[in-house]
């Protein structure tokens, strides 16, 4: 472990603690405390320092989870559901009470009056997404209604409704965006417009109910959380070797070195079987091929 690696990990974790997901902003002091603890906790899972990519991914994951838990706890304690909401977030007016949304009556289901306010928050965001996808007017309203039902429908495998997944209210927005994406695919499939096109997979039901079926990310931009490094690493961890992860992590994630820097680093090149005596142009060619191969593997994993 090098100080520079830990410094980079610290920076990433601190920023993640400040903004664990879109719409949440935690104080700098609390972010510092959470990042410190998260990194310490993750370090306990390793006897030896793993690759920087793995350690950073794990620390980011722990940081984001701890921050969400903290925000949820403080909102509950202070009965203030707007606490830690990022004032710069203008997507909707105010947060709702997540606990009430998640309250399930054994007989009546999810029937808290807080649900009356949810459509007004989700509709503009959903309609904008559906309009982009070419679903408008009454069709968009139909799809939107389906998505609300989907939030409370119990999954066959776990018997758990999606609305129970979020820890903080802001997570409902990307959760619903994903459901909107899948329901729009279902809508197009029913219309027969997407027959035989790739990456349309099964319906949301099949994707979420069957644990053997990989989730398809047909529109990663719908959920910024999909694009965090910890999520990408988790999804694609086995697609790359540790050395390949190190390569793409340094070059593209932290951008802490250029390909030129790596070519000049004989010890680094040796990790890929490049002998010390080979020319710089050979090193460049080999490393470039490795980079492209690693990115291609990631690309395929991210769309499958």
């Amino acid at each position, binding site marked *: 472990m090098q100080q520079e690696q830990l410094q980079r990990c610290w920076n990433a974790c601190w*920023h993640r603690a*400040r903004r664990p997901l879109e719409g949440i902003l935690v104080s700098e002091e609390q972010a510092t*405390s959470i990042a410190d603890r998260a990194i310490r906790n993750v370090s306990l899972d390793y006897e030896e320092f793993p690759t920087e990519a793995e350690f950073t991914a794990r620390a980011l994951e722990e940081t984001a989870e*701890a*921050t969400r*838990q903290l925000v949820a706890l403080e909102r509950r304690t202070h009965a203030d559901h707007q606490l830690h909401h990022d004032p710069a977030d203008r997507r909707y007016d105010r947060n709702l009470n997540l606990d009430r949304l998640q309250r399930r009556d054994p007989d009546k289901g999810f029937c808290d009056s807080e649900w009356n306010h949810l459509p007004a928050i989700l509709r503009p965001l959903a309609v904008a997404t559906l309009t982009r996808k070419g679903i408008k007017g009454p069709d968009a309203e139909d799809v939107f209604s389906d998505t609300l039902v989907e939030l409370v429908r119990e999954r066959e495998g776990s018997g758990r409704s999606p609305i129970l997944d979020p820890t903080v209210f802001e997570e409902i927005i990307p959760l619903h965006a994903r459901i909107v994406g899948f329901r729009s695919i279902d809508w197009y499939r029913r219309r027969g417009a997407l027959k035989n096109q790739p990456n349309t997979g099964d319906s949301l039901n099949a994707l979420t109910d069957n644990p053997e079926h990989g989730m398809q990310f047909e529109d990663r931009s719908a959920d910024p959380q999909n694009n965090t490094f910890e999520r990408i690493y988790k999804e694609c961890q086995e697609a790359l070797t540790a050395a390949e992860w190190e390569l793409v992590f340094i070059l593209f*994630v932290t951008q802490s070195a250029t390909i030129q820097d790596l070519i000049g680093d004989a010890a680094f090149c040796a990790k890929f079987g490049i002998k010390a005596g080979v020319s710089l142009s050979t090193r460049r060619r080999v490393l470039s091929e490795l980079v492209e191969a690693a990115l291609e593997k990631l690309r395929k994993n991210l769309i499958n």
Partner: protein
Amino acid sequence: MNHDLPKNLESTRNLLAGSLQLHSSEQAPALPGDLLNDLASRFSATPAAAAPLQQHSWLARIQSFIARPAFGMAAVALVVLGVSVPSLMDSAPAGGFRGKVSGTAESPEIRIVLLSPPTGFQSSLVAAGDFESSMISSTTTGDGLTGRRILVDFSTATITALNASDEKIHTAPLPKDAEEISAAIAAAVSRL
């Protein structure tokens, strides 16, 4: 990056480039020197370069502790396990290490065994930070287990505390609200 790539790989590169989601308008504070030194010693690396050591006042340390996730629940567990004071008074930085290295609350004699827990529950319980991860394990049956233990049985929806003689000391229903399970486990631990 300085690396020419085929066009079809540019989106993947851009995805990775933005994946840390740093905010350029903000700068993270300096890496705490005590964190750096603790990790350097843990991983037996070259002694860390002298970094400015952040001195935390007693008050700041308390404030930091209170600001931690799930403080309320953790406080219950800490009191129950009876080691909260030492963990606060030692020189460990805010947060401390979990597990065996930690000076934080741990009762190695007591095990928390989750019987057929829902997927991800164990990791959620660990992440909540109320109990040491080394105390928690999952299995499908409580048969053959010995020693002081808490059985959290999701099939029968019960929490049972057993002493070293396998006597049931405490039984309680498993709360339906997942948020309350941690506190219920802490209550069971307190009976042992």
